[in-house]
């Protein structure tokens, strides 16, 4: 199992096709930090994109 933390990555970059392709290529589960105030539409969209991809499924980190 290989995972990668995303603690301070901008939602737009997190959900970008180039990022998702990289995560898929290396089979990485992404562990996304969600600090207070980060619950935006952009993050929601990125999490959905992550969780609908194979190995790059979204997961929570608070």
């Amino acid at each position, binding site marked *: 199992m290989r995972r990668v933390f995303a603690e301070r990555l901008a939602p737009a970059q997190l959900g970008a096709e180039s990022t998702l392709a990289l995560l898929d290529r290396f089979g990485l589960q*992404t562990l996304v930090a969600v600090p207070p105030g980060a*619950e935006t539409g952009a993050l929601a969209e990125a999490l959905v994109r992550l969780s609908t991809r194979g190995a790059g499924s979204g997961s929570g980190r608070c």
Partner: protein
Amino acid sequence: MSDAQGYWPSDENAEAFVRRVQDVLTFAAAAGATVRTVVVDLEPPLAVMHKLMGAGAEGHVGAVLERVKLACRTEERRGRRSAARVFAEMQANLHSRGIETFATVIPPVVLDHPRGPGLWQAVFQTQVNRPGWSKICPMLYTSVMAELLPAQGIESARALAHVMAARLLAHAGRRSASALGLTGTGKLEGEPVLPDPAALADDVAAVRAAGVEDLALFSLEGVLAREQPEAWLEAFTRTEPRAPPWLARAAWRAGLIWGQVPPWMTRMLPEQV
């Protein structure tokens, strides 16, 4: 959590953290995202971490000794008991919903006996043994360890990472994981980072040689900001196991005996007061 709340979950803010987890799960569900894992990044409160990490070698020891004194006080012991219960309830709740918990921890807590009241868990205000987390993941960041410990550079830190991973595996078995890096700075912002993908490959090789195969890399933003992100991920995902030199491993095994306080010596620290 917010900086004022301590940023990371610890004995000081367990109830606030559980509420925060519920809020995030609700947010994710409303968005339509599936959460498979909740990371519980167990570290001392932010103010304590600043003291531990930023005080230099002499101040670092002083900060740890100050925490040892505080951990013995009745108020902290009560707080520890309460936090253990709160985290255990959260773990049980998430487990019943099919959600994995992934507890990242600072390396010294691996030295605690797996069934006893842990000295290092108490000192660093973290709950590792009691909640029954799905995975336990010490942060074996060689770039940081090389700077903090009286080690002979990153090669010695790598041998220490191997020994700590082996000790974790002996106690936690299939629940063992390890975090590696750093590829970029974190919350404290001044953390030293690995120089190149080859250094990360050496870390992966050392920890895999100890038998730990569940690895987490800090961080994605660090990888994307470096030249050749693919080379970093190649090193992280495709490096074969290779143990550090025997002499370096043996030196750390002997040295760490001093950190392994037996349970009968930590009766003043139990979560169950």
